[in-house]
């Protein structure tokens, strides 16, 4: 079994004033390459926290986190930044695009960290926008896009550097049913056609249906894995 994500006895604790709160309790998780996993659970159960650990945005208090065969739980800040640039594409609920940059420039942002020439960056960004079906909006600013379109741009940005893993935190949380379905269809396409491994947090059981597997989280622990 080739696990692309592997968590072993991972705990995460936060300091709240004098108290220490454990948000994740000795958690084990394996995700295979090419999987599409939906992570569900009540608010405050630790979904975002888990996603942040997998995406290299944060480090666990205890345990091991490996992504693409690389241990990331003890990496330095700058090594983690390099790891994120190379391996992770993030999609957030509120798109998090740069308001002053065009769709195209937003998509190009991750490529600034590569040694690609300006022409190649441009080309890659356009390709990514084509994949999400938004090439004709390349010159538009985020404010000129609908929520669904903005989220497509965000997905294009997550894709553009060809990451190992797409990490999505409630990507359809801010969208209506129809638009949400379009976005989920797109993620599914990326998973099926482009072989992208995807982990997606969602509250929406309909959204979870698009995934191959659903993980349930409650109070910092994962329920045994079930097949969707």
């Amino acid at each position, binding site marked *: 079994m080739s696990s692309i994500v592997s968590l072993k006895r991972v705990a995460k604790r936060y300091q709240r004033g004098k108290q220490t709160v454990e948000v994740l309790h000795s958690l084990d998780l394996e995700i295979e390459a090419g999987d599409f996993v939906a992570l569900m659970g009540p608010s405050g159960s630790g979904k975002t926290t888990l996603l942040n650990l997998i995406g290299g*945005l944060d480090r666990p208090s205890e345990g091991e986190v490996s992504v693409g065969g690389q241990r990331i739980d003890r990496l330095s*800040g700058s090594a983690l*930044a390099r790891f994120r*640039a190379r391996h992770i594409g*993030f999609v957030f609920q509120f798109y998090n695009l740069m308001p*002053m940059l065009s769709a195209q*420039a937003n998509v190009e942002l991750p490529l*600034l960290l590569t040694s690609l020439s300006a022409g190649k960056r441009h080309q890659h960004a356009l390709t990514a926008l084509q994949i999400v079906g938004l090439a004709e909006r390349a010159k538009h600013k985020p404010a000129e896009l609908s929520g669904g379109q903005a989220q497509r741009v965000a997905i294009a*940005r997550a894709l553009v550097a060809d990451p190992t893993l797409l990490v999505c935190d409630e990507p359809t949380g801010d969208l209506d049913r129809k638009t949400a379905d379009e976005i989920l269809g797109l993620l599914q396409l990326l998973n099926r056609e482009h072989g992208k491994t995807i982990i997606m947090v969602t509250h929406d059981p309909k959204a979870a249906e698009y995934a191959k597997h659903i993980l349930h989280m409650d109070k910092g622990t994962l329920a045994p894995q079930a097949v969707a």
Partner: protein
Amino acid sequence: MKYLPLLWASLWRKKLRTLFTALSIIIAFLLFGMLQGVNNAFNRTIELSNVNRLIVISKIALTESLPFSYTQQIESLPGVARVCYQSWFGSYYQDPKNFVFAFPVDPERMFEVYSEFKLPPEQLEAFKHTRSGAVVGADLAREYGWKIGDRVPLHSTIWTRKADGQSDWSFDIVGIYTVPSDRSQENQFFFQHEYFDEARAFARGTVGWFAVLIKDPNQAAAIGAAIDKLFANSQNETKAQTEKEFQMGFLKQIGDIQFIVTRILIAVFVALLFATGSTMTQSVRERIPELAVLKTLGFSDTRVLLLVLAEAVLLCLLSAAAGLALATALFPKLKNMLQVVELPAEVVFAGLGMALLLALAIGLPPAWRAMRLNIVDALAGR
């Protein structure tokens, strides 16, 4: 370089605010350029002053005149090579704002004592032999398009003519001098003292001051003392100084320029520091979520720090460059006051250096904050 579009876009996120900040920096550096330029010009005048020359003025005041007869008396002192005299004519050409530095002189003596002033021999001859003749600096001639043979009227704010009681004088240009060692001296206007002395309505037989060429600069103090001693207890006591001392004393009368300039600039820059510093801090604070996203994408903490800092540097350097360019364009307008033709390059470089310091001062605190920014907290809006 590839970050430039990102920097540029970030900078203009709030157009009006950035424009305002840029404008205040432009104005500050315009001021810096002009004031520092004036300061620099004065210092340069002092540096370039000749150590071979003594200036002899009335002990009472710079504006008090001295008897013409002193010329021979000073010249007969040991160590003195040659003496020339000048007077303040205080004149303008056509319009009061066209101020002209004009001086009645003895042609031969003048160009001997001021040997760095170059005048072709045949023009000097013409100057000596033309009663209403005048010799003008190349720069001045260029400014008004004067040529040899032109008749030029000057209006004196001091001297009236005995013949008609009028203050309008006219001169025939017979020569154009140059000062290869200091082009800023090429804006003066010399005419015959003899003609002036005969024609003026009052104060005949006097001159404004003497310039004394000495044989050995090391003897300057001794010769100066000898001159003052010669006229001690007379009606017109003198004060002899080296040219350098004289220039410094003259500038002191205007006020301690350096002191004033420095104070003004400190005040301006402190104000600028607070104004731009707070807008910079505010603009970065507003962009915390965006900076967090950049970090999410894999921009390292250092890179984010550098981006914010580069933004400050870009803003400060561009605005300062605009302000200094404006100063460079406007500075020559002060020519009539300063005898300096253009803003010295060293002022421009000093300005750009200041801009860089300013950028670091206002950029570092927010850049530091951006660097320390915790992604998870920032994304969660904590």
